[in-house]
Structure formats: C-alpha cells, structure tokens
C-alpha cells in the first residue's frame, strides 16, 4: 500500500492549482482565491509568495474598492515575462505567436500557405517567425516551451504528421524537422488543431463550465475536438475526433482520405463552392463570399448554404446522439455558415437527434475565434509548467 502524498507533493499540487487558476481566470484577489480553491488564507499567502518569488505571478494592491477594510492583494500571472511559442499549421496559413502566461498573445506572425505546399517549405517560414520574435524578447523573460498545432492527425510522441488529407501530407516528420531547424527550442509538444482549440474554448471561451462539448472546426475539411466528462477524447493514438471522415452519404463524392461520402465532402469548402457554382475559387474568403451572397439574396448561394446547413445538422444530430453534449461550437468557416444556415441546421438536428440527447444542447460560436489554435498550442507548453511550477 502506498502512503498518502507527502507534504512536499501536496505543496507542489497546490502551487500548480493556484497558478492554473490565475492562468485561466486572470488577475484574482487573494480573498477570492481562498474561497475558490478551498485553502486557508495563510496557505494562499505562502503559495503566492513562492510563485512570485519564482517570477510566475505578481501581486499588487487593487484600486480603491470603496469598502471598509484592507483590500486583498490581487494576484496576476506574469504574462509579459513568462511565455511560450505557439505554432499552428493550417490548410491555408502558417502562424506563429509568442503567448504569455495567462493566454495573452504578445507577438504574432502569419503567412499564407499555398495549397499543396510540401512540409519542408512550411518549416522554414515558421522557424523564421520564431527567430524573429525571439529578438524582441526582454532579457529577464522566462521561456517555458513550445507548442505545435497541426490540422491533421499527428503523433504526440514526436510530432510525426501521420495523415493530414486536407494539407496533403502523409507520414512527414514535422515535429522532428521543426525542432532541428529551431535548434535550442527545448521541449516541443504537439497536438491536433481542433483538439487544442476545443481545450481553450473549454477553459476560457464559449464552453466554460460545460463538461461535454463538441468543437467543430471547418475549412476545407472538418475536424473536431471532443470533451466528454470534462476530459479531452483523443483516442488511443491521439487521432480520434475525425468527425469530418464520418461517412454520412455512402453514395456521395470521393473524399481526400480515399473513402467516399465523408461528412466533409458534404459540408466542407468544396461542397459549398460547388453548389454555389464557384468551383474555381478556394479558401476562406471564397466561403465568406458565398455566405455574403446568400445574405444578399443570391438564390444559388442561398441554395448552397441551405444544402450545407442541412448536412451540417445531419452530422451534428448523429454526434448529439452519441455524445449527448451540452454545447456544440462551430469554429472556422462553420461559424459563418452556422449564422446564416441555423434554421436548416436546427431543423435537421431536431428531426434526427433523440429528444433526450438534444433537449439541452446549446449551439454556439467560438468566443476566441482563430486565436484559439494559437493559445491552445501554447497551452500544450504551459501544461508542463502548470503541472509543476517550480521545476527547472
């Protein structure tokens, strides 16, 4: 039998809990921390002193509260001094950011990614961004690690991109090569784009306080991050949540993954543009143009949006039956499609989802928009710090 946790373990755990609280919720008074974390005042005092000694948080007296008594000190994360690099590889763009503790984006770079760009060509600009941003880092700042989010199926252990159909990569050692290119970058943690976005919407966005959430991200394809019972559902190898490849129409069109009739062949960018008669276009702008045309009364664009909305409701209905989520969040271009096709989506969802599975479902748009992927990638790096704040 194992003995209970030692005093030292309890202390480390409490330090992590406190730091995580201010990391997620922002500046918080000591008094509030006391009640939120269920620790007594002197413990909170000792923990914050220790964290501020390590340069992770700062404490200050708040503005006049107008109430009697000495105001409680406000503990805030040292966003400007403790940071991680976040890198995001998406279908149409490559992004990098320097993200401070507390999820604040301090600096960012972005470039377009032409469709069909091989992975070797994508590494160089990303590594360049990080080197550029490094020049502006103050000397006393503390680097905690880097996170990489990829819009595809990526192996967590080493960042090997196993399959990214929409990007067009198969078995490419992205993590390894990026790490080598960056040199002394230290720990590089990788994750799926939609997964990390879901995590951020759950911790500080549209799904705060909800433990069963499906985050859908649409561009060319459709990815998802699923949170069930408060935990991310990623599957055995971390490749789960590929709802875009749920077959909804066996007689449908061939998919980039090699199968036929996947959900993304009905609701992805190509489907929308094809129905709108704009097959020559591509990219996010083209999708938004169809949405705009539909709102302005273009009947073909309206038909396209309704068609996609109908299929979108079809898939969401299936997911609702399987996961019974409290919220479904429509991210990427699906946000814009949701807002103009909500009638179709809701109608189809209500028609096929079981009453008990759909009665409390909230359909929402993301609160953090496209920043979620960057903050989420940084979150992967911060995770190590939060697990043990005084390490290293």
């Amino acid at each position, binding site marked *: 039998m194992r003995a209970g946790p030692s005093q030292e373990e309890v202390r480390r755990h409490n330090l992590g809990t406190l730091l995580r609280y201010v990391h997620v919720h922002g500046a918080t008074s000591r008094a509030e921390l006391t009640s939120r974390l269920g620790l007594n005042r002197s413990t909170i005092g000792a923990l914050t002193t220790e964290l501020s000694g390590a340069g992770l948080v700062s404490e200050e007296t708040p503005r006049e509260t107008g109430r009697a008594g000495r105001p409680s000190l406000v503990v805030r994360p040292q966003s400007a001094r403790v940071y991680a690099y976040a890198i995001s590889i998406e279908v149409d763009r490559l992004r990098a950011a320097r993200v401070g503790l507390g999820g604040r984006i301090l600096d960012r770079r972005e470039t377009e990614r032409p469709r069909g760009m091989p992975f070797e060509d994508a590494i160089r600009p990303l590594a360049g961004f990080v080197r550029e941003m490094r020049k502006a880092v103050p000397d006393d700042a503390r680097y905690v690690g880097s996170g990489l989010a990829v819009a595809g199926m990526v192996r967590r252990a080493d960042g090997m991109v196993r399959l990214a159909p929409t990007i067009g990569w198969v078995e490419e050692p992205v993590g390894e090569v990026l790490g080598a290119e960056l040199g002394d970058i230290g720990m590089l943690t990788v994750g799926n784009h939609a997964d990390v976005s879901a995590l951020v919407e759950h911790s500080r966005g549209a799904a705060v306080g909800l433990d069963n959430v499906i985050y859908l991200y649409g561009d060319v394809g459709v990815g998802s991050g699923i949170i069930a019972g408060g935990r991310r559902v990623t599957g055995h190898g971390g490749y789960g949540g590929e709802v875009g490849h749920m077959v909804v129409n066996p007689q449908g069109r061939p998919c980039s993954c090699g199968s036929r009739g996947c959900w993304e062949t009905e609701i992805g960018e190509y489907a929308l543009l094809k129905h709108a008669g704009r097959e020559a276009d591509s990219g996010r702008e083209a999708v938004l143009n169809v949405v705009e045309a539909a709102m302005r009364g273009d009947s073909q664009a309206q038909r396209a949006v309704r068609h996609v909305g109908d299929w979108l409701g079809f898939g969401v209905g299936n997911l609702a039956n399987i996961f019974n989520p409290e919220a479904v969040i429509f991210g990427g271009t699906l946000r814009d499609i949701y807002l103009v096709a*909500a*009638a*179709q989506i809701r109608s189809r969802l209500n028609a096929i989802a079981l009453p008990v599975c759909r009665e409390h479902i909230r359909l929402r748009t993301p609160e953090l928009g496209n920043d979620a992927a960057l903050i989420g990638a940084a979150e992967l790096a911060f995770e190590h710090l939060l697990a043990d704040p005084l390490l290293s």
Partner: protein
Amino acid sequence: MAATPLLELRGVNKSFGPVQVLHDVGLDVYPGEVTALVGDNGAGKSTMVKCIAGIYTIDAGTVTYEGRKVAIHSPRDASALGIEVVYQDLALCDNLDIVQNMFLGREKMSGVVLDEPTMEQMAGDTLAGLSVRTVKSLRQLVASLSGGQRQTVAIAKAVLWNSKVVILDEPTAALGVAQTAQVLELVRRLADNGLGVVLISHNMNDVFAVSDRIAALYLGRMAAQVKATDVTHSQVVELITAGRSGNLGLPSESSNGNGYADITPSGDER
C-alpha cells in the same frame, strides 16, 4: 434553463378604439434564455413589446415579474423594474459620444457636476463585459460609428442599468454580414450572462441561431410558445403564416365546419 420565468404575461388584451390588437396573449421570458418573438407584419409584436415597456397600458391581463404581480404604467416603471427595450431606430444621439449616449437622461452626478470618470468607467466595463472589441474610443461620437457598432452601443446602454430583461426589436435588420454575425453573438452573450432576452426578428436564421424558445404571434393571438430544440423551420413558418402547425398552435377555425381538410406540415415545400 431556469424553471420559473422572469417575466410572465397572461391573458393580455389591448385595443385601440374598436380594433382589438392583442387577444388573451401570454408570454414567458426566462433568465439565461433568448425568447424569439416572431409573427407576420401586424401580428402584434410591437404592440406587445410596447405594453411590456409601459408605452401602452394593457386593457386586461396580468404581468408577473420575478414572481410578483406588477403594473407597468410608464417606461420609467419598466426601467425601474429592470426591463429595457432597444428599438429598431436605436434612439441614439449622433452629436453625443458613446458615454454620453449610454447615460443620457440618467447621468451620474458628483455634487453639482457630471461624474465623467465614473460614467466612463461604467461604460467601459459594460462593453468589456459583453466582449465588445470593435469600439475604439468611448469618446467617439455616435455619428462616426457603423451600423453594427451603433447597435452594440444601444444594447450596452440597455444592459448598463443592471437590467434583467432586454427586448431587442429587429437588431440585425439593415446590417451587413459580418456585423449581423457580431450582433447575433452579442445577443447570445447577453442571455449567457443571465439576462432574459426577447428578440423580435423576421429572419428565421437569426431566430434559430440564438434562441432557446420561440413565441409565434398570429393575428394578435399567441399561436404557440415552443422550445427551439423541438421545432423545425417549416413548423415555425406555419405558425407564423397560419397560426398552427400539426398539433401545435391555435385550434382550427370551427366556424368553417367541414369546409376544408387539415393541411399537413410535410405537404408544402420546406
């Protein structure tokens, strides 16, 4: 999904001379939810809102607010209770800035002078609480704002007074695509922050995008108040245009006898 409504109307009647506009209308507004009020032109939506806002007094019926029966005789009564209305024309003054507009007629005083710092602080906090990032300066004249930003300011003005019920009359009419999206997200956020929101809209996508309940008025009668998770687009359209859909809505006109058969919902185009 609270069990008790914040605002409850029962058996409300309103006539203008010989014309009866509202017949025994009921409505429930729940905290944390968006209730969409839909209906054709002339169905009585605006009259109903004006009855709640105290611009018209009701002829018969009861209004229950937070479990208490209340009488609303004037807009001041309504705002004292915590009911605010954002009308379609927004009622903002172009020649005043955002803070001045938000506090118009209810300015904070510090002795005999206006307490500008407090008002600016409160206005800023309200906009931040609604995650509004599109407004650059609080001292911008309203004349310089876009349609979506004006709508945002008008909504923030309604929220500023710790109001509990906010009624929005066609907030997305005449807005562009991006601004419509932002206003819809703002409407949803109001409810997610715990307010009871009533949304009047003719756009079914707007209604389905943000509402939890849909109340359909038909020729001055409440055809049905349904949950958005229980109905389809075509059912709502039928409630609006015919007052009934399948077993939802008003009973069929008995005066017709066996004049015509029931129109099934699946029959017409979707």
